Structures are given as structure tokens and as C-alpha cells.
């Protein structure tokens, strides 16, 4: 204990990290309602005064924790790029010519995201609800990068035209973070959870590549679409 507090005195940044880690644990378990600066300080093993020096109010601490989660997610799922959520300059263009690379990249991305979500189910879901309820979700580093990647794809000739990027981003992200809820009672070992992550990542890849229906042969659906959606 004394040794630890020495370290902290020397290094406010690592104290901040210890506080954020404790806050992540409490937020995952009890949600924002169940979190207080003092309960976090207690779990982190720092005194309350120190915690308040870092985070004046509960709201500051919750916001900082979710931002931290977003950075961790960014780091775990995207390759390269900086911590402000900007994509690296030298990314290959997601165009028709590079489609095999795009699909390979997507396969790996899907798996990393599915694994992160399955390993961090509660905090992942809380982070997601928070992002979706924000007036401007692109203030979130992970969401910003994710939506940008989808937008690049939508703008390129590797994708079908007419994609609604905002809706697609929400559809994609929500599934990854709700799948672990369904998985929880079905996969109790690490290995089983990994299989479930692979399964979900695989279905999303399949969906992205082929959709669900054989569009050309589906006469009834085509008629339905024509009637209800002139544009499709």
C-alpha cells in the first residue's frame, strides 16, 4: 500500500488510470446510476480528495470513463490511426479494384469487434447506449472512425449505391453489442465465447457480401418493393 501511494504521488497520470479502471468496473456492474466518485475512489484505493482532484463531478467521471472505453475499443478494433479517431493517411482505397483486400480487412475487423464485445459485454453496451443517445455521436472517437470507414465504403465503387450510412452504422454496431447478451447463457467457457464471436463476425461478413435474399429471383418481393419504395 505505501509503495502504491508513492507511485501515485509521482504520477498523476497513472492515478487517473487507476480511477478510470475502477470506474469502468462499477459502471459495467451498476450503470451510471450506481456510480459515485467516492465509491470509485474506494475501489481504486485512492482517497476521495484525490479522486475529486481528477474528476470534480460524477458526470465528469462517467464521461471520462466512456471516452476511455471508446479509445480502448478504437485501439482493439482498428489498426493504425491516431487516438483522435482519425484514420491513417496511407489506408488503401476501398474501391472495386481492391475489393478482395477490402473484404479480407472487413473479415478481420468483424472478428476483432465481435471479440471485444463478447469480452466486454456490459461496459460495451453502456458505451453503445451512450453514443446512440448523444446529439453528436461523432464526438465519440470510435463512432467517428467507424462511421467514416462506412462512409468511405459507401462513396466508393466497391459498394452498392444507395447505402444509408447512419442507419447501417447503427444496425451494425447494435448487433455486435447485443449478441453477447444472447451468448451469455450459451457459452460459458472462453473457447465457447470465441466460437460465438467467430460465428457472429462470419454472419455479418456474409450479410455484407451477399445480403439475405437472392434479389433477382424474388418476384414477389420485387413487386412489393416497387409498390412501396419506388427508388429501390
Amino acid at each position: 500500500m505505501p509503495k502504491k501511494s508513492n507511485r501515485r504521488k509521482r504520477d498523476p497520470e497513472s492515478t487517473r488510470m487507476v480511477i478510470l479502471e475502477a470506474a469502468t468496473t462499477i459502471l459495467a456492474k451498476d450503470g451510471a446510476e450506481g456510480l459515485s466518485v467516492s465509491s470509485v475512489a474506494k475501489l481504486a484505493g485512492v482517497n476521495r480528495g484525490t479522486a475529486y482532484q481528477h474528476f470534480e463531478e460524477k458526470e465528469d467521471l462517467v464521461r471520462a470513463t466512456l471516452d476511455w472505453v471508446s479509445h480502448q475499443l478504437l485501439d482493439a478494433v482498428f489498426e493504425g490511426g491516431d487516438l483522435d479517431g482519425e484514420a491513417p493517411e496511407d489506408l488503401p482505397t476501398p474501391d472495386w479494384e481492391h475489393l478482395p483486400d477490402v473484404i479480407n480487412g472487413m473479415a478481420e475487423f468483424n472478428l476483432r469487434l465481435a471479440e471485444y464485445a463478447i469480452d466486454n459485454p456490459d461496459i460495451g453496451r453502456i458505451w453503445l447506449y451512450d453514443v446512440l443517445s448523444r446529439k453528436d455521436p461523432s464526438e465519440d472517437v470510435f463512432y467517428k472512425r467507424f462511421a467514416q470507414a462506412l462512409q468511405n465504403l459507401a462513396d466508393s465503387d466497391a459498394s452498392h449505391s444507395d447505402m444509408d450510412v447512419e442507419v447501417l452504422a447503427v444496425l451494425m454496431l447494435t448487433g455486435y453489442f447485443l449478441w453477447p447478451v444472447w451468448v451469455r447463457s450459451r457459452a460459458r467457457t472462453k473457447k465457447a465465447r470465441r466460437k460465438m464471436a467467430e460465428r457472429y463476425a462470419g454472419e455479418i461478413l456474409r450479410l455484407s457480401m451477399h445480403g439475405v435474399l437472392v434479389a433477382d429471383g424474388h418476384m414477389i418481393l420485387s413487386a412489393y418493393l416497387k409498390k412501396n419504395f419506388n427508388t429501390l
Partner: protein
Amino acid sequence: MNEKKASVSAKRRRRNPDATREEILAAARTVLASDGPDGLSLSKVAHLAGVNRGTAYQHFETREDLIQATIAWVSEYLSQSVFGSSEADLSGDSERPIYDYMTGIGDFAVENPQLGRIWLYEILSREDPNKDEFFRQFVQSTKAMAESEFAEDGVDAEALSVMILAGYFLWPVWVHARVTSKKERKAMSLRMRREFLRLSLYGSLRAEAFPELQALLDS
């Protein structure tokens, strides 16, 4: 609560326990949506419903019973409005393809953002979500479609079902942070339906010209 109104409805209730039960469940939906499962108590619900606590306890012995009954009410409502009374024919060549059913889900979700989200979480976290009648029917329909001649090969119906429901019930969280009128919400609900249709028909990528990439999916 208006005293006079309360006493009138109390009289009606004495004659009709079913109506009382409905009123308690309606109040429970409101409380569940605003305070979540952790914030729901029988006395809070009884107060909002304008019935006394003893009456509420006669209908629902515990807080947990009331929460489960509320979740079951949502499932029942969705089953009725989406599938009707009989098992849906979603093999693909029915008069109403699955995409038509999704309108009912989308409209309910966008008008009940908190309740829908809490309901989905409760259902998915069960030991066996298939014990929920709506969830069972929904997965069954997705499976029937996946096995029909109109479907692409290799659809994982369970994963797809979770994705669709998650998207439909969390989209409203996004919607409510942005628009306020019913008309705008309806437009947002249509936007979801349209993108979901597009995704189902075509996917996101023009992958059909690269059959060798199929190996990624088969591995």
C-alpha cells in the same frame, strides 16, 4: 391523480379485476420505461395506476412477477401486431413477405424506445430466449426464410435474428436524440426499414464478382 376520477375507476375495478390488471400493467410499462427494471417497485406502480398497494399485490405477488408480466405483455403485443393470431408463413412466397412484418416492429420500437430496449435485453438475457413466444416465432420465421429457395446460402438465422432485433430496438435511441415529432419518428422508422431491405437484398459490397472470396465464409 384526480380524486373523483380515481374513485370512479375504483368502482369499475371492483366489478372487473381484468381491467385492474390491465391498468396496473399499463402503469408498470410507464415505470419500466422511465426507471428501468431496477427502479420499478410495486408501490410506485400501484400509486401511478391509482390502485391501492394491497390490490396490486393481489395481482402480482412480487416485483419480479410484475416485471416478467410486463415483458410478457410486450411480447404478446408484438406477436399480435406482427404475426397476428396464427403462425406466419414467411417461406418467401407468401403474400406478405417478412419485410412487411418488420413495419409493425419498427413502429412499436420507435414509439416505445425505452420499453423496447429493456424488453429486448430481458428476452436476450434469459437462459432460454425461445421460451418467449415472440422471440421463438421471430427466429423461426428467419429460419424458414433462410431455408427457402429465395435465400442466399449459409444464413445464420440466430445471429441474423439478434442483429435485426438489436438494430430495430436500438435505432429509436438514436432517433429520439434527434427528432421530436411523431411525423419525424415515422420518417426515421421508414429509413430503418429501407436500409434493412437494401441490406437484405444486396448486402453492402459488390462481392458477387469475386467468388474466390467465398472461401472466407466457408472456413
